[in-house]
């Protein structure tokens, strides 16, 4: 329809709220607010928490209707971080799409990259041609990212309870892993490292040894965190029995990931529908049965140890597969540019530049065509899911046979899991809202895309 005229938004209309006594509270003394409420004689109090509230895990807006300290109704409002990434991807080549989708859930960017690339490969029909080493590197990156993401959950969750020590320890541990990711991809976040057909470049020399060293340190950090949290009476009082979401509610609301596994169902896409060779690794799916916030912390901590197990196995395999290709052999798909690590970080590879600029005109033409035009993907649609740190990430891609995605849709686990906010918070205390939302571990970049 051509009648659509986009325009900027006006301020929230006050027409509907006309005549209703309102007062604004931006922190401050609650007894004054309570006195004001008593003076107005209005018993229904709606508290707007966020979208700039530090305890809402980003720009999440919670609309709470409270009666004293009890939450009688809770609604989540999202959209404050909507940047149109899916729409943007329709105007960039299939390879450039990685750079966009990595920015959705910025705490766990490698899962979007992997899910997207697996979907593009399925559309191209080259899934079998992805080399073993490329899959191994993907598994390494994803598992390191899973630990890093769970550490952010522990850290920010602790911080929201007021436990700054947990936050400092969590971020310290995460930093160890980000150093590995930085060594491999050149960036701490938003890597754009996994590409359709493989990965951007091979691991730099010494990566496996460096990762093993970091894993040792990580274990120390994890034990320290466990000692600090798990038997802490305040931590347990705040967490146990809070944000209860049983299996039936999880299935009805499509809630996946650690929240679902904390109800006792060992559903994990890595086991039920393996990709990137996960079926060849030896690991368990940790579960708990309490289905509360505390159980979710336990499940995530256990998952970190399982991820370490996978990383140890994949490091041995990477040592054995050193020197093997990390991109599909098909030169019509494989990204031609090569990068190299030098003193000041990642940059152009002098050898590759020498070849295309000095010796082979055909190589230059090929490089130019593939980088500017990209490759064509046969028309059709696929749906690929991967086990994201927060649940099941689904990538729905439609191709029109062109050099760009016709439609890219990401079923972000946080987007779906946030729907459980009402069920988890209603009937509880206001302070428990913070704990419940933290236990969902939403990342608003992924929710709003």
């Amino acid at each position, binding site marked *: 329809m*051509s009648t659509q005229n986009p325009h900027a938004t006006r301020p929230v209309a006050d027409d509907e709220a006309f005549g209703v006594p309102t007062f604004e509270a931006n922190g401050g003394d609650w007894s004054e607010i309570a006195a004001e409420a008593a003076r107005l004689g209005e018993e229904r109090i709606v508290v707007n928490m966020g979208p700039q509230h530090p305890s809402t895990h980003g720009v999440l807006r919670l609309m709470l209707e409270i009666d004293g300290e009890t939450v009688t109704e809770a609604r989540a409002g999202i959209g404050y971080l909507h940047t149109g990434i899916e729409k943007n991807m329709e105007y960039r080549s299939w390879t450039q799409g990685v750079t966009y989708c990595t920015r959705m859930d910025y705490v766990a960017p490698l899962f979007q990259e992997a899910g997207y690339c697996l979907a593009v490969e399925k559309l191209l029909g080259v899934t079998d041609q992805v080399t073993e080493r490329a899959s191994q590197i993907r598994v390494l990156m994803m598992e390191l990212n899973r630990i890093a993401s769970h550490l952010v959950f522990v850290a920010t969750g602790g911080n929201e309870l007021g436990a700054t020590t947990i936050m400092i320890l969590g971020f310290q541990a995460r930093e160890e892993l980000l150093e590995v990711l930085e060594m491999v991809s050149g960036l701490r976040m938003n890597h754009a490292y996994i590409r359709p057909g493989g990965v951007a470049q091979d691991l730099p020399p010494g990566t496996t040894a460096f990762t093993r060293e970091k894993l040792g340190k990580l274990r120390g950090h994890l034990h320290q965190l466990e000692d600090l949290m798990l038997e802490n009476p305040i931590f347990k009082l705040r967490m146990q029995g809070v944000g209860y979401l049983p299996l039936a509610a999880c299935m009805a609301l499509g809630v996946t990931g650690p929240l679902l596994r904390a109800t006792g169902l060992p559903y994990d896409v890595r086991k039920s529908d393996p990709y990137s060779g996960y079926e060849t690794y030896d690991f368990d799916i940790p579960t708990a049965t309490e289905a509360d916030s505390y159980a979710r912390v336990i499940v995530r901590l256990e998952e970190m140890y399982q991820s370490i197990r996978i990383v140890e196995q994949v490091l041995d395999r990477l040592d054995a597969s050193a020197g093997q290709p990390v991109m599909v052999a098909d030169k019509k798909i494989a990204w031609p540019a090569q990068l190299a690590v030098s003193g000041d970080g990642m940059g152009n590879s002098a050898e590759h530049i020498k070849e295309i600029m000095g010796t082979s005109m055909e190589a230059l033409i090929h490089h130019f065509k593939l980088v500017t035009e990209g490759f064509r993907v046969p028309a059709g649609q696929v749906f690929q899911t991967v086990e994201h740190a927060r649940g099941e990430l689904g990538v729905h891609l439609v191709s029109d046979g062109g050099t760009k995605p016709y439609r890219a849709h990401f079923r972000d686990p946080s987007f779906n899991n*946030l729907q459980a906010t009402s069920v988890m918070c209603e009937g509880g205390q206001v302070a428990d809202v913070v704990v419940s939302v933290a236990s969902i571990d939403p990342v608003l970049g992924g929710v709003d895309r």
Partner: protein
Amino acid sequence: MSEETKDVVATSPQEHPLLEVVAVRHGMFGTQGSGDTSGYGGLVAPVVLPGPSERPYGGWFDEVVDILAELLEESGTGYAQAVEYVVVDRGELTLSLHREHLVEVCKHLRDDPDLRFELSLGVSGVHYPLDAGRELHAVYHLTSVTHGRRLRLEVAVSEADPHLPSTTSVYPANDWHERETFDFFGIVFDGHPGLARIEMPDDWVGHPQRKDYPLGGIPVEYKGATVPPADERRQYR
């Protein structure tokens, strides 16, 4: 261009009313507006999505379609009235449905112990402006945790009558997903408990993920020039 595409050129898209025409390509090299220097500029090739598949579909696909057909016959709806066609492509099963019976099909898929697609992974929309009368598609992704299976439901509606029954009564998980599809594509899900915009501001006009949504260029400070919007820039297509 492959053999397949040539066949498509020979038969006009009107003869295949069920095939979704996603694009019509002109010329060979994807560029536009720079004149034809190749001699291939006159080529016109409609691009269509993979069409209906014939039995056997392979693997568990036949079993699932058989059970669903049986259930639909039993309930008096009839398989042919509910399921338009079945597509098997790239190892994935898609059931294209008539919108009237979408909720009933979802119910069967969720409740029958041999089907048991108990987990919905949401709804996504796709806009095919060239697929006359069926421009807007809603795509439902279902997963069976019990049997380890996945399938996709697709329902097409026209821009003039963009109404679909809401599936939230069967899959409450689709609540926000349907709101998002309404927000981005303008598909109205009848019976949804609160079909408000979710990502865009409440008073936004238009549905941004539609292909004909005006993107707007960026004015630059040079003699009134404008950086053209993304879809109008010279580019490979």
